């Protein structure tokens, strides 16, 4: 089991950042790498257990299931059901915490998963920088005040 952890500071209040990211079906609206997304079975995107089925801009398809959604803690966890990444037991959490000093947001995104040992380094970089940090960088642009 390896863990990838990425954190950043977004220069906007936490409730504003949360409004951007709480929609489990909303990845195309704020990440730079998702082309389109739908929730399977027509379920609401904030129903725990719902599955988002999305297509990456590079063509890959991923199915992820919502495990936790907390409007109280500004936190969302999900697992990967199917993907071309070659990972098993993948569970990720995205969490926001208000920074009272400056009314900003501390954003954390981490994942734990299993993979082939020789792919750990590459996958850690791809997920930590290519997905999580890229998502944060995109959010910073979107909420710029």
């Amino acid at each position, binding site marked *: 089991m390896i863990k990838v952890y990425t954190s*950043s500071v977004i220069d906007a209040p936490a409730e504003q950042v949360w409004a951007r990211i709480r929609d489990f079906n909303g990845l195309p609206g704020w990440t730079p790498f998702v082309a389109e997304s739908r929730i399977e079975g027509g379920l609401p995107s904030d129903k725990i257990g719902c599955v988002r089925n999305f297509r990456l801009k590079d063509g890959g398809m991923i199915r992820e299931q919502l495990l936790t959604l907390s409007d109280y803690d500004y936190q969302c966890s999900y697992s990967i059901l199917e993907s071309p990444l070659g990972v098993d037991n993948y569970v990720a959490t995205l969490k926001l915490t208000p920074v009272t000093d*400056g009314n900003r947001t501390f954003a954390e995104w981490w994942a734990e998963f299993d993979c082939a040992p020789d792919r750990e380094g590459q996958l850690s970089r791809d997920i930590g920088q290519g997905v999580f940090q890229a998502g944060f960088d995109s959010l910073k642009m979107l909420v710029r005040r």
Partner: protein
Amino acid sequence: MIRVTRSAIIDAPIERVWAILRDFNSHTAWHPVVAESVIENDEPADQVGCVRNFTLKDGNHIREQLLALSDNDYVSTYCILDATLPMQRYVATVQLKRVTDGDRTFWHWQSTFDTPRGREQEFADLVGKGVYEGGFEGLRAFLRRRPGAPAMQTAGGETMATQGMVVSRFGGPDVLEARPLEARSPGPGEVRVRHSAIGVNYIDVYVRKGEYRMIEPPAPIGMEAAGVVIDVGDGVTHLLPGDRIAYACAPPGAYVGLRTLPASQVVVLPDEIDDETAAAVMLKGMTAEYLLHRTHLLRGGETVLVHAAAGGVGLLLCQWAKALGARVIGTVSTDDKARAARAAGCDATIVGRDYRFAAALHDATGGRGADVIYDGLGQAAARENLEALAMCGHWICYGHASGPVDRLSVESLGQKSATFSSPVLFHYTADRAVLTAMAQRTFEALRQGTIRLDIRHRYPLSSAAQAHRDLESRATIGPLILLP
């Protein structure tokens, strides 16, 4: 119940911030509202359950207990045990998280507590703004003053070349020779430091002569120094590269530019203590600390006799004993030194070079004698010391410039129900918690002006032999330091 939460981003790596915040006794160095902090019972500051005693700058007192500490999660939880402020059931948690984007630190500080009805807002502001937000700014200012290194650096560096003063063979001052030396990369539990000032002590003379067999020549001598941390070995958590530090410890080896030594003996210097003062005060100041607070707990009203009262330790003993309310009588060898001793708080001085002082002391005390004798002279003064001692007095022999005391009989002590102590600094400082408490009390005494150092004798490190000549000629007043 009131809940107060504040959080901030600190522009420093989490290891740097945590090294400060995990120390339950660090607040006087960085928090703007804390004037004094003492850990009770000399416990280590990372001992879960330890109690710190705060005096705030507004005069309030707060006792807080460490409930949880995690180096893994960067969490510290503590509660108020009692306070002069009306706050009940106060429990607070400090948590740090790494901001990987930019290698910064997220600091979350939260508490819950109760206060009298109607004063909730007042105390929420006091805690949130005064303590937490004030703390964020205080720590930022502290880090600007002492940036340290970008991260907890583990040693992996090369051996570094340096110069040192080496005892080539046991003998007089001339056996001290300048030689090229090396400071190796620090191993587990070690630190490598760059000296900025080095203290000279009489023990260095004993070591140089071979009277204390603490080295095998050729080897550098020296017991204390101040400087800056270059790098640290595995398992060292209380020091970071860039920290200003000082130490006083065996084995000898401080007369060098760079040195690798056990980190457990090294303490971080408060901002307001400069390097020269630190190099001059560590061994002598901590010696005075244990002589007055540990070997003998000096009480106001006691009469103390301080030998070599104008020497490095003597001047500190006079000042500190006087501040504790004792009557202080000093022996010195010259009138110049008598003036220095009186300026340091001596109520009376006895001038002479012949180790005859008991009669003069009895005159000065109406025949009663001294309750405590602080004796760095040793054998030549032994008989007079016994005579000078009051009934039930305490003779503390912490040095022996004239040779070690021998042939002291239990019977001779029994004639006055006297106590004889032969303490050694390094036995007290062997326990890091005690060392930290001793250094803190010494620094606090400097801050308060209880003890002051007038450094009149500075030498280049390469002139260590001259420093020894001067020290042995009994011509110096106060501390001597070497500058690399």
